[in-house]
């Protein structure tokens, strides 16, 4: 499914605006409208680059593989571009992660359309076409099935999926700290393990450095540079097998210019993730508030920048839910998510010794990738009273308790002496 789309005019920077028009009633094609910056004069032409990211576009073949097998996937796609316009020439180029491509297949009808050699494989690339000109294909009568192409290629990188990611970010002005906590639900989308898992074979392979890249025994998270005292646990408690490498201080000013480096957190799941296995875990860390929030003098507001997610390399996120918890008593709040999320809701979150609770914002989004690794900008005001609220509440409460005790101690309740 399409996760992200960006359109550019060749040679120009800055992308054009794309508006999805939804599914067309009779051609059943999803239609997007691209508004050019200025109308195109007659006779001239313009090159438009459309980038999209498709998630879960390939499937493993065979569906079951043993512990040591290598991992092949099949990518199937339409050989012809669905378009409401006539297409004079088109070509489909497929770039596989490795040159080892087991097979590729093109339908006969498509072969006939080819101008010259229908399919060319060079290295890791397979090129279908170019094909002859086509009438508009996004029409009612058009049947796509005879125009399918497919490539059966080897996958030598792990194919992980984050089934769900729940992030909650809590801002504390008293502690000048921003705590981030992510609940991950991880699934290994490699072909499912055929038969059962054998630790012996696994250890042998490990020992001989012949482990199939499909098996995941560790994941590395890139934390923000200021991250400190991270934690890593799951439903049955702390997972002792994790290593934290704080961000190195920029040695030279050149390094400094490159910007701060990331702190790295190496997570080792309790058990190696075979194909089709799941693993849920929670990681969290603190970061100094100064890194992500700064005080806007002229209109006296805090401006807070929260990363929407911490992406795992080449791992799609099917469902993400990010929750930002502002300090208690924060008022007139404005929120700017990095991209238009599917749902945003406001709630109140009550935690340690709160009286009225803290404003919290929850963002729901689906089908995310690295490109969605953006910042949520939130601006708000915190009056001084709000800062003093907590200590006052605690003080009064304890005062009441003591006074009650004092009175109780001095009330005489004996019947008669």
């Amino acid at each position, binding site marked *: 499914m399409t996760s992200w789309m960006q359109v550019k005019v060749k040679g120009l920077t800055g992308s054009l605006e794309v508006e999805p028009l939804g599914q067309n009633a009779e051609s059943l094609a999803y239609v997007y409208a691209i508004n050019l910056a200025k109308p195109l004069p007659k006779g001239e032409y313009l090159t438009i680059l459309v980038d999209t990211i498709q998630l879960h576009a390939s499937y*493993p073949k*065979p*569906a*079951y593989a043993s512990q040591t097998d290598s991992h092949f996937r099949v990518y199937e796609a339409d050989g012809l571009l669905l378009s409401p316009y006539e297409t004079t020439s088109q070509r489909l180029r497929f770039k596989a992660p490795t040159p080892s491509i087991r097979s590729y297949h093109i339908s006969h009808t498509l072969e006939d359309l080819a101008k010259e050699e229908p399919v060319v494989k060079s290295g890791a690339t397979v090129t279908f076409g170019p094909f002859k000109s086509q009438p508009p294909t996004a029409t009612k009568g058009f049947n796509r099935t005879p125009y399918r192409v497919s490539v059966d290629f080897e996958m030598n990188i792990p194919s992980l999926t984050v089934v769900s990611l729940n992030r909650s970010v809590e801002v504390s002005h008293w502690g000048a700290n921003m705590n981030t906590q992510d609940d991950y639900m991880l699934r290994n989308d490699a072909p*499912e393990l055929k038969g059962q898992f054998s630790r012996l074979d696994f250890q042998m392979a490990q020992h001989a450095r012949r482990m199939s890249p499909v098996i995941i025994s560790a994941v590395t998270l890139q934390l923000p540079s200021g991250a400190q005292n991270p934690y890593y646990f799951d439903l049955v408690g702390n997972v002792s097998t994790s290593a934290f490498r704080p961000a190195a201080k920029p040695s030279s000013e050149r390094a400094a210019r490159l910007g701060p480096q990331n702190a790295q957190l190496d997570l080792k799941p309790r058990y190696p993730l075979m194909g089709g296995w799941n693993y849920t875990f929670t990681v969290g860390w603190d970061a100094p508030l100064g890194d992500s929030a700064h005080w806007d003098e002229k209109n006296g507001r805090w401006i807070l920048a929260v990363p929407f997610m911490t992406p795992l390399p080449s791992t799609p996120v099917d469902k993400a839910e990010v929750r930002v918890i502002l300090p208690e008593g924060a008022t007139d709040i404005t929120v700017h998510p990095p991209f238009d999320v599917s749902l945003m809701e406001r709630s109140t979150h009550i935690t340690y010794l709160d009286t009225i609770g803290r404003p919290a914002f929850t963002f729901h989004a689906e089908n995310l990738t690295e490109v969605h690794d953006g910042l949520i900008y939130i601006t708000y005001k915190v009056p001084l009273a709000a800062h003093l609220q907590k200590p006052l509440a605690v003080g009064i409460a304890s005062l009441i308790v003591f006074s009650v005790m004092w009175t109780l101690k001095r009330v005489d309740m004996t*019947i*008669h002496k």
Partner: protein
Amino acid sequence: MQQRLLSWLAITLTVLASAWARSSAGDKVLVVSDAKLEAAEYSQFWDGLKNRGYELTFRKTSEEAPATSSFDVPSFSHIIVFAPSTKTYPADISPQSLVHLLSDPTQPTNILFVLQPSTPSSPLRDLGREFGISFPPPATPLIDYFNAVSPSNATSLLLTPPVTPHTPGFNGGDVLYSGVAHLRSNNPLLVDFLNAPPTSFSADPLEPADVIVEVAASGGEGFWAGGRMGLVTGFEVLRGGGRATWVGSLDLFRNAATAINGKPTANNAYALALASWTFQETSVLRIDSVEHRRISESSPRDQYRIKDDLIYRIHVSAYNPATGEWEPTSQIDDMQLEFTMLDPHIRTALSPVQGEKGWYETKFRAPDRHGVFKFIVDWRRKRYTALHSSTTVSVVPFRHNEYPRFLSSAWPYYLGALSTSAAFVLFCALWLLGGNEEEKKKTQ
């Protein structure tokens, strides 16, 4: 998993789409035979299958392609192992992989084994043993002087198989049979279609007498004779409903056998009938859905209470080869439900519901025993697809507030409690009142 499911779904869809395909499992058939075998001699059989809407693919045992499965996804719905005599098979039709294909729980491949007239090849012998079928020593075909076509060759017999609803299209008549017999083990999954005549025995046709002699010597030990022996035997695997049939005679399928000296035989009809059972056309059943709930309620629970009145419903439908559709059936009259924890606590009959075709139901009261119970329907009849369904629910005891509140037997306790507390109150009152007076006395 999804992919697998999808592919499976796709296949069923295609099956339903091509309405003229008679089988419930699919219409692609692979015929594996020897190189020297003349396919033309069996054309009537092939045509019969083709008319039924099967698309046949022929393959020699010497060839590698087309493979029976690609990446563990079977590429054919049925396989006819047509009397190969070679000692070695390619990997994808080795006994092991054949068994694997046949016993696939989700998408079984049905297999029709046709054996060499005189002696089945050794891999097939071994395979037969796995099914519980054992063959006489090599080169000993079935001999019977009473049912022989002609006294001259006693190995080709005229038999009359029984007419059953499971072999439609075969409406009686003689069948020419010349081949081997086999012995069935007591494996409950075996289905006997055709037995050897009681007067028959298997021996070397050149000097049949020898067998009699040595057997007589050994007191009947190892005498392959009599009606216990099978000629055509069906088999249905435990899970998934895959079917296999062992036919001891190649001639059963031969064109030449359709008429014996002028008189037509029922061979072709019988062969096709066997094929139709093997390829899951006939007597194929399935459980569509299962319901259980309290009688008083409408939706099921995963927890019931002891002594609840429960109702259990199950919907069964049968495959109709004529229309190629699944139709609800109420024909089954001996289905039972077991409410089981370790042992069946309740075993009751599931009777068809009037008016609702395909539905069977029973009402009963949960036993006075808490624990994790299972509704089990396990209906196994020979020649029919086995029906098995097991649903787990837990039966919980009464909640604390569900016990009766006031017991007539407890009145003494109530009275005791009341009187004591009353007396206590009284005592306190008196004591408090009287206390002051005493003090007064003291002060005076």
